[in-house]
């Protein structure tokens, strides 16, 4: 099929009344999840995943994806008004958003955030329409060795490029791969690490693991911090929403640059919206003639990260759908949802499931336009949502976690998996380990093992097959480079600290 008829197919699919309703539902919920601090897109997606079992796979993906990119819009509101990131991808928006809010310019800030989000998202969707099919074309020729390399690169990039210690990220991604081993080994039929539980034959339940790690652990960390102090929210006058000409002029070029940076980050497997927003902000600060304005209420400081995180969130669908390698933890959950619907992730989705792929793209356009309406004229609604007390919110979230997880298999066993991973996740968060790489490792681990075993079988045990083709070699080199670069700073920091602690006369232990 040619490009035009594919696009037409996409919009016909997306404009079906049910799909139209479901994308509206998805982006509204996504905005809600984004606005509420402590409720991320991944929590919202996991809670609603069981609902999608009643839909066809296209509608299911349209709704879940809508929650994901909807949250990229909503989170900026909380950052600007309350200096608390609605989701982690909006942490950087606080830096200039809150000062603007204190100057009484929250309205224009939210207006700019909404528009730049739309621009960034649109740029990445265009990119996806033109790039995903040819990438899938190439990926169809991938052998097992190429897949192993692409996936290992994704894992290493996701774990080491995130904020915080790269070693801890690596530890979590490896732990996730280990968890993926649980269950029946498809090659030999051996039950591995099931501790005698028949319920573990098919492996750990993805949703239960995600809910424990993200949902329960985040709620607990919030409760343990005792952050029950009532939020002070500035009232927003809708009339004061329109930005000035100088706001628009200041934001235009940063938005364009940040869209490119964000989309570039999104395409790389493992590099998600959070990193994209940090990079775009840093880039703007560097090219600015007045870098001292940043952090004191510069409009570029909102335009750049907001365009970047939306571009990255949309562009992350490129590797997720055209390679079957998720761009981040949420992409991993979306692929898990496809698997539950009986669709194997991989490049064949783009060609064999054209209705799904192009329907999703059609829904992206509709969803982004809806989000523009939801987040600018209707912003007052979301500001009111912030007045819901957390003490009423978290019991409700825990209830939805319970019923959501239970209704996947109607098995109470999964609730206890949530409890166990809630404990694991809380310990991890307390010790400053990131949770997202674990989930990525958990999803990609079994795929890596399968492809690795196949590659070794083909090459009769000769490991050089892993770097034999140009694509394999390129990804292998990229993996090693990322590892060396990220660990170099860790090792240097450790050595520095060691030297510093040696030089002053230390009292004997």
């Amino acid at each position, binding site marked *: 099929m040619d490009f035009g008829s594919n696009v037409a197919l996409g919009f016909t699919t997306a404009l079906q009344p049910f799909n139209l309703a479901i994308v509206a539902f998805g982006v509204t919920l996504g905005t809600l999840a984004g606005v509420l601090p402590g409720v991320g897109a991944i929590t919202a997606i996991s809670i609603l995943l069981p609902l999608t079992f009643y839909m066809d796979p296209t509608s299911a993906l349209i709704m879940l994806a809508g929650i994901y990119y909807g949250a990229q819009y909503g989170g900026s509101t909380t950052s600007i008004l309350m200096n608390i990131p609605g989701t982690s991808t909006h942490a950087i928006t606080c830096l200039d958003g809150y000062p603007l809010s204190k100057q009484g310019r929250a309205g224009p800030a939210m207006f700019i955030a909404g528009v730049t989000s739309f621009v960034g998202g649109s740029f990445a969707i265009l990119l996806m329409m033109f790039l995903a099919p040819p990438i899938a074309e190439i990926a169809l020729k991938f052998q097992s060795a190429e897949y192993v390399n692409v996936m290992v690169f994704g894992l290493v990039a996701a774990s080491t490029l995130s904020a915080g210690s790269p070693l*801890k990220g690596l*530890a979590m991604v490896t732990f996730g791969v*280990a968890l993926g081993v649980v269950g029946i080994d498809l*090659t030999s039929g051996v039950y591995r*690490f099931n501790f005698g539980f028949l319920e573990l034959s098919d492996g750990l339940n993805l949703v239960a693991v995600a809910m424990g790690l993200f949902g329960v652990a985040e709620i607990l960390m919030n409760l*343990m911090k005792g952050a029950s102090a009532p939020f002070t929210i500035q009232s927003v006058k809708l009339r004061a929403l329109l930005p000035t000409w100088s706001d628009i002029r200041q934001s235009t070029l940063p938005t364009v640059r940040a869209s490119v940076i964000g989309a570039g980050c999104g395409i790389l497997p493992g590099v998600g919206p959070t990193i994209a927003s940090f990079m775009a902000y840093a880039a703007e600060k560097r090219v600015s003639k007045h870098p001292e304005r940043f952090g004191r209420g510069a409009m570029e400081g909102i335009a750049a990260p907001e365009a970047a995180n939306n571009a990255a969130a949309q562009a992350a669908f490129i590797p997720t759908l055209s390679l079957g390698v998720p761009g981040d933890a949420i992409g991993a959950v979306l692929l898990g949802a496809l698997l539950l619907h009986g669709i194997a992730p991989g490049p064949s989705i783009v060609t064999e499931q054209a209705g799904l792929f192009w329907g999703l793209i059609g829904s992206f356009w509709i969803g982004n336009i809806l989000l523009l309406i939801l987040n600018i004229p209707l912003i007052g609604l979301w500001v009111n949502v912030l007045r819901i007390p957390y003490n009423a919110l978290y019991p409700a979230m825990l209830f939805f976690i319970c019923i959501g997880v239970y209704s996947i298999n109607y098995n109470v066993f999964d609730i206890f998996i949530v409890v166990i991973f*809630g404990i694991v996740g809380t310990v991890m968060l307390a010790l400053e380990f990131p949770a997202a790489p674990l989930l990525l490792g958990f999803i990609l681990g079994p795929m890596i093992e399968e492809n690795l075993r196949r590659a070794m079988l083909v090459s009769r045990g000769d490991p050089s097959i892993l770097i034999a083709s140009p694509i394999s070699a390129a990804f292998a080199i990229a993996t090693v480079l990322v590892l060396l670069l990220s660990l170099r700073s860790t090792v240097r920091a450790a050595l520095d*600290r060691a030297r510093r602690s040696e030089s002053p006369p230390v009292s004997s232990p």
Partner: protein
Amino acid sequence: MRIAGFDAVDLAGGVLVFAGGCAVALGATAYPIGELTRMGPGYFPMVVGIALAVIGLALVFVSRTTATPLPEVRLKPAFAVFAGLIFWGLTIERFGLVPSTLGLVFLVSLAQDRPSFVMIAATAAFLIAFSIGVFIYALAIPIPAIRL
């Protein structure tokens, strides 16, 4: 808690990761390892376990020489939340949606310093009405509202 010469957060993390890696590698020996050409079910977990243990050791090594104390851990919220989840799991099939949800909301609200019974009642009432309407009537999931 402080441990002289070590970043307690990183040290604890490193030791946990190392122990986890050793456990995975040891567990893998229970399955046939095979060889590179024909990897057995134990091969991949063995490699992953060893990698995890090595990363754990590296974390311990890097953690030396700074001193961050372990964070204060408040156990009450943890007990309340997990008690609520376990209660829901244990009662949902035997007693149905209404009693298990009431218990869940009550137990997890004990995590707060001064739980408000008005808010507990309002949250529980809303959730029960919502879930009977959406889950039991609209989606028809096979859970009874109340089973005595």
